[in-house]
């Protein structure tokens, strides 16, 4: 055991590819399962959230326009870099979630595998969900799934890494961009994940991660006119109905998610991918 004093990390927001503090200057203490201090996290404000939406909208054109092959490679790269930092993530998950080291390691491994699973989906979604439409007339008609746009995500409150990856990776896989409010009490793995994202060719602004108070940020996310879809997985139960009502103001797609957090180690399916795409049908006449 070394006597060396460790260098501890300042946890900040991940916004537009940069790591700013909250513009509000606020932080809040994050503790482990036993109430011991771990770190101060930035407490994002409404203004931070709005800037995150601007960043996500700005990044949408390039990310949605990237080839599916390219997006697949970028997502796979995230898995590679996450794999390389297994120990660090396992320590953070163990501390934050209060689970034994072995369990934490298994959760991190599952998170890596989830990135790989979704990486493989990027160039298959259109094949599986798209169609050539056999219309009754001299027209070529085809339908393709397209990313819905900017997705607001209230990340799971309990599963700080695997849960987060399970809701974030499908957003990226379809070519949408994300504004994520992380787990309020377990935000540290999310911020460390943003360091992975920043170094794995995910363009800045594609993912924006805000730590802070979910109940403070959620209403602004739900009512924001430039957010196209909303994932309420980590919403405080007492706010959920109001958030859904706010979302109706701009006809947001509200994902059908369970009211209690699912077991994220279950095998995923394509329900999230389906919920995050819009089907576009194109017609053209045939003739000489």
């Amino acid at each position, binding site marked *: 055991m070394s006597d060396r004093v460790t260098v501890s990390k300042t946890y900040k927001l991940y916004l537009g590819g940069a790591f700013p503090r909250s513009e509000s200057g606020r932080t809040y203490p994050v503790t482990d399962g036993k109430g011991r201090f771990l770190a101060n996290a930035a407490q994002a404000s409404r203004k931070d959230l709005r800037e995150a939406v601007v960043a996500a909208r700005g990044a949408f054109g390039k990310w949605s326009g990237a080839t599916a092959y390219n997006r697949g490679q970028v997502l796979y790269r995230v898995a590679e870099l996450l794999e390389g930092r297994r120990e660090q993530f396992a320590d953070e998950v163990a501390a934050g979630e209060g689970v034994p080291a072995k369990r934490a390691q298994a959760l991190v491994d599952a998170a890596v595998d989830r990135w790989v699973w979704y990486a493989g989906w990027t160039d298959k979604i259109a094949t*599986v*969900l798209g*169609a050539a*439409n*056999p*219309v*009754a*007339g001299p*027209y070529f*008609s085809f*339908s393709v799934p397209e990313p*819905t*746009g900017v997705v607001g995500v209230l990340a799971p409150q309990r599963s700080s890494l695997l849960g987060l990856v399970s809701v974030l990776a499908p957003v990226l896989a379809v070519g949408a961009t994300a504004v994520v409010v992380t787990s309020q009490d377990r935000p540290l793995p999310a911020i460390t994940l943003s360091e992975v994202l920043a170094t794995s060719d995910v363009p800045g602004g594609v993912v924006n991660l805000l730590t802070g108070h979910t109940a403070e940020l959620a209403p602004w996310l739900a009512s924001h*006119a430039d957010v*196209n879809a909303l994932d309420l997985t980590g919403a405080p139960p007492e706010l*959920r*109905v*109001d958030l*859904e*009502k706010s*979302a*109706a*103001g*701009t*006809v947001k*797609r509200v994902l*059908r998610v369970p009211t209690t957090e699912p077991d994220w180690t279950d095998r995923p*399916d394509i*329900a999230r991918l*389906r919920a995050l795409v*819009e*089907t*576009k*049908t*194109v*017609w*053209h*006449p045939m003739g000489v």
Partner: protein
Amino acid sequence: MTWEYAPAPESAAIANLKPSYRMFVDGEFVEGAGEPLKSVNPATEEVLAEVSTASAADVDRAVKAARRAHDKTWGRMPGAERAKYIYRIARMVAERARELAVLESLDNGKPIKEARDTDVPTAAAHFFYHAGWADKLDYAGLGPDPRPLGVAGQVIPWNFPLLMASWKIAPALACGNTVVLKPAETTPLTALVLAEIIQQAELPPGVVNIIPGAGDVGAELVNHPGVNKVAFTGSTEVGKVIQSALAGTGKKLTLELGGKAANIVFDDAPLDQAVEGIVNGIFFNQGHVCCAGSRLLLQESIAEEFLAKLHARVSTLRVGDPLDKNTDVGAINSRDQLTKIQDLVASGEQEGAERWSSPCPLPDKGFYFAPTVFANVTQSMRIAREEIFGPVLSVLTFRTPAEALAKANNTPYGLSAGVWTEKGSRILWMADRLRAGVVWANTFNRFDPTAPFGGYQESGFGREGGRAGLEAYLDV
């Protein structure tokens, strides 16, 4: 040059119009306890028939009948058997096509040629297409064990009364759901003839229930706790109210709402063909089309020439008696809608757009509006932003494809768009970037049960038609 036409009226008698119509609940036609409504022929302002409407208790009875039918018969029936019932409906709609077309034209005001050539055949096609899915849902790729949702509460608009009923009912039944459908207040008649067909096709009682009424009946229906799935086609304003009302209920919702589609003409487009497409895009069904091409974006270099051709062509549209087979543009569906169109047109003039209206003669009676084209429209004007839902076209110009795209996408809606150019790569470039659920290239207003239809953004969510459309009615 003026073309003289002899009148070619279709006989109204073919509609077999009855003095009164009743709602259809649990397999029977019954009186509703609501205040009866009078359905008016918008072409003459005469009452066509009296229609009984549902009270809150009637809605409850219909939902319970649908629940019983779902639990006891329809939901358990093998898909292959359900399919045969739906095929029967498709065949019987086709058999009574002429009657339905005339009745639709009378009740809605649309030209008989459109009811005859589009509404009714496409309605029959929707039943025929979805019938085939009933025993093949395992192959739809939506999940390993697709199950019905239960009772579907469906509320439809007045612009394509029978066609919208078929878009709603056919996929719901194919997926094993039962239905309570509310037709629009001003156009309930063809849905009730469809109920007759459903009765004659011997569907088990309660599988389909049709309850006429106004918005209050629709609200009662979508908010009924016995409803598992809500499907609404109508205005974005009402869609938002429904989405909000359903918050926290867990009911599955699909919305097909308004639009403000851009129809984009590049300088290399075959102009005469494009003119036909633009005319069809906005004047089809009097412009009462959610996906109408109501914003014309012209490349600057051809704007003047194109506008002249457009005026010439629109001047030849024959506005008048919907039952006349020569009629191109029929009656506006209601006085309310006519007033709304007039208000928006007045705003266009006040905001400085240049109005041109066809000099065509209009009938003395009935609700009519001359086809109108506004030039020099800017993006901030109401006529460029709001859905007019009438025969009014707003013309804007652009210089580059990027500008066309930016203007086309500058709307909270996203239902449809049109692109006119001879250059294939440009079509695909535009189609890829237009934020709209349907993109018609060198054509417009094409519909088919195999082709998914639905919106982006505030034009709603969920699809109707195709494999994608099944998801709206399945627990997957």
